[in-house]
């Protein structure tokens, strides 16, 4: 485990117990998920019981305790998106990536997840990839969205 990296994150956050969430966010950005050793290390350094750190980490959907792929694909299945046929969008993505929600593709490029409402229902159905919002998605658009992120031919 690269303790220096975590040490640096802790330092930047001033070893502040109250700042546990921002610290975990930084750890997650660093490693793409929250490794067990990292949580133990953070708990030890901040002198918080490990269980408390674990409770926080398991509570928020944005934290992942399992390794995640390079790109996070989130499909909204909230009410508005559901009405706008988000489920068929999800089906399409599942088919394209060959994984189910909560899973990673074998090459660790993509992770698929679902959420219940992103608070942008006017754009339903919504797909978010790495924080980029794609509103009014249709099954036809999926291919081009995913292509943008496929390794090697990223457009930007």
């Amino acid at each position, binding site marked *: 485990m690269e303790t220096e990296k975590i040490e640096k994150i802790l330092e930047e956050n001033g070893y502040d117990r109250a700042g546990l969430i921002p610290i975990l966010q930084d750890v997650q950005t660093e490693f793409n998920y929250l490794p067990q050793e990292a949580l133990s290390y953070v708990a030890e350094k901040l002198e918080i*019981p*490990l*269980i*408390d*750190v*674990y*409770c926080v980490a398991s*509570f928020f959907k944005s934290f992942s305790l399992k390794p995640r792929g390079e790109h996070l694909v989130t499909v909204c299945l909230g009410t508005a998106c559901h009405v706008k046929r988000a489920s068929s969008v999800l089906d399409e993505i599942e088919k394209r990536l060959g994984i189910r929600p909560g899973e990673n593709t074998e090459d660790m490029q993509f992770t698929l997840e679902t959420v219940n409402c992103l608070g942008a229902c006017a754009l339903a159905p919504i797909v978010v990839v790495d924080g980029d919002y794609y509103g009014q998605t249709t099954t036809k658009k999926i291919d081009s969205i995913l292509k943008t992120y496929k390794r090697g031919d990223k457009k930007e």
Partner: protein
Amino acid sequence: MPKVTINGLEFEAEKGSTLLEVADFLGIEIPTLCYHEGLSPYGACRLCVVEIGVGENTRLVTSCTYPVQEGLNIRTHSERVVRTRKMLIELLLATCPSSKVIQDLASKFGVTQVRFKQEHNDCILCGLCVRMCAEQMDGKAIGLVGRGDDLKITTPFDIKSEQCRLCGGCMYICPACQLRCQGPDVEEAVCNACLNLEPPCLESWDDAMCYMDPCVACEVEYSRKPKVKKEKTSKEQS
């Protein structure tokens, strides 16, 4: 010192005390499940509900967490409270039908049937064990992990915690761990059989097991246990 009215009785309560403490002091019995004197109140089971307010504007609050306020009108056994309590017990019973503590509550409050699908969970998420571990045992080995439907009590990463000294405090306080009578092996079991007036299981069993109608245990383990007479001495069923 805030003045409150509890069941029509005027009372000067100590500042900062909870409604449950006031009722306790006055000898008014309010059932509790997730409350324990030595632990901080948590308000999870809702069993200790009381009705506060006057006229149309009443509402139910959990007495174990609600602090006294000047002029509060409290009713601990109003029709609404009693009805709610019964419903709560019924729901708890559906979640965890084999718990002796819950069965005893059901028996005490006259809940004799469960209209919900029985879940047979082994945890009702009352959080007693978590508080016991943290507050009395200085352990902090377990906690409420996840949220919503996935909420459960466990150790970090679901593996044995380094903080755990195997003191057993969590099991000692757990209302769901205390199993009710587990079948015909009466010697080894705790149960409410003595409270049964007309136990339905006597038709097919040598010994009464519970007072539930329909019998919860029989529904649970119907396939596992003999329907007709069985020798008391045999152990292979336990």
